[in-house]
């Protein structure tokens, strides 16, 4: 530890300044004494078993299990099953209802992108309903292809996060998804003025 020099002395470079300054007295014994006093008076200082009666512990555990069970029940039976679910093979499913579930990933977090994507997904079902059934099937199959590509790329990136090739292809795939959603949106309205 370097002793401070005379403060009145003129300093011409940083090297002349002390690297650290010793306090005028040792503060640690006083701090340690205060900590000991505080620990002794806190309920947290007691061992866990002494803090809470055993019956309360069982009640707390039961409540936790119950809340997890309710959560699982809500997740499985109340929420839509496809969100966020695995990729579906939509090639034969002409119903537009699960269309939004085909594109459920949300890797890109930009709020404007998210807003636009959400709006397009919301109108997807209505737009698909205006299309010929064969086209509808092909669009759903293409969205499933995109979703699978995203999952494959994200899976590969999970193993090799710094891979620039995969990052670029993933961005391309997200752009493709937006293009398809936009195209479907435009195409759905194509015949409406006719």
């Amino acid at each position, binding site marked *: 530890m370097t002793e401070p020099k005379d403060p009145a002395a003129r300093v011409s470079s940083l090297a002349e300044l002390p690297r650290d300054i010793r306090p005028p007295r040792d503060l640690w014994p006083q701090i340690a004494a205060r900590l000991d006093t505080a620990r002794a008076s806190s309920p947290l200082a007691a061992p866990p078993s002494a803090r809470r009666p055993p019956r309360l512990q069982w009640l707390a555990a039961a409540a936790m299990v119950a809340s997890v069970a309710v959560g699982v029940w809500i997740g499985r039976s109340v929420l839509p099953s496809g969100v966020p679910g695995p990729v579906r093979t939509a090639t034969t499913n002409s119903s537009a209802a699960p269309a939004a579930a085909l594109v459920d990933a949300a890797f890109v977090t930009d709020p404007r992108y998210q807003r636009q994507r959400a709006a397009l997904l919301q109108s997807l079902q209505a737009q698909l309903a205006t299309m010929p059934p064969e086209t509808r099937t092909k669009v759903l199959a293409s969205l499933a292809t995109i979703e699978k590509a995203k999952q494959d*790329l994200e899976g590969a990136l999970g193993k090799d996060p710094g891979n620039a*090739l995969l990052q670029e292809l993933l961005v391309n795939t997200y752009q493709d998804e937006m293009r398809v959603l936009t195209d*479907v949106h435009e195409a759905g309205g194509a015949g409406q003025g*006719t």
Partner: protein
Amino acid sequence: MRIVYRWVTMAALALSSVAAYASADFEKTVPAQARGTVEISNVAGEIQVSGWDRPEVSVRGDLGAGVERVEVTSEGNRTLIKVVLPSMAFHNGSADLKVQIPRDSELDISAVSAEVRVANVQGVQRLNTVSGDITSELVAPEGEFKTVSGGVRLRGHGVTARLHVSTVSGDVHIEHAAGDLEVGTVSGTLRLQLDTASSVRAHSTSGDVSFEGQLGHGANFEATTVSGDLSVRARSDGFRYEVSSFTGDINSCFDVSAERTSKYAPGKTLQGSRGDGAGYLRLKTMSGDIEVCDRK
């Protein structure tokens, strides 16, 4: 006998009215500017457009069941051709249209399942369908061809143009084009043949991409897929190249082998330069195979 005669007459009248509703011919010609814009919309059936030297637009149509009328209007430099369906018969009427327009017109077509064919139109073309196929002759300086599930087939004569093509699941087949090309699909196949390309950007998610042609001096070529294969035969004075695949194979005629990008993860890359190195060629895929060569 009189009763029988009455029944026969009534049946004949009923049949003739059904026939009149089921199908009708249509013909109309309106004046148009030589470099105006022609807009055509039709839900189903066919739209055939060809350019001619007259300053007028001629429309001949075979209107199927469910078509109410065809509107043909011309105002200023804009001619509008619209197949109108009854309000309750959404997307159920089919019409086959044969349209002749001034050769230098700009052409905008919007169709749902109607097939679109265009020939000899030298103005900008913007052709959009949902499920109908698009076939066009490339003589315009600029074209935008967009379909969801329909295919796109373009045939040029080596005339330089700026082309933008996109499909969702439809295949794209381009022959004898030249200039700048940007083409994308999700699951369709891209088969591209350009006489001279100054810039090519091709992207597919799962569809295969193949290119054959001449790259102009200093041209940029970029093709990417996620799982589709890439096959490129690009003749050129020279280019720098960067070819990468994460899990697919890379083959080339460049007498160099692809190298692994990492000791611990999959991935191969091939980089180098050919000829004068003025152009730039980038091929990238995740799981597709790549084949590249600068010879025929």
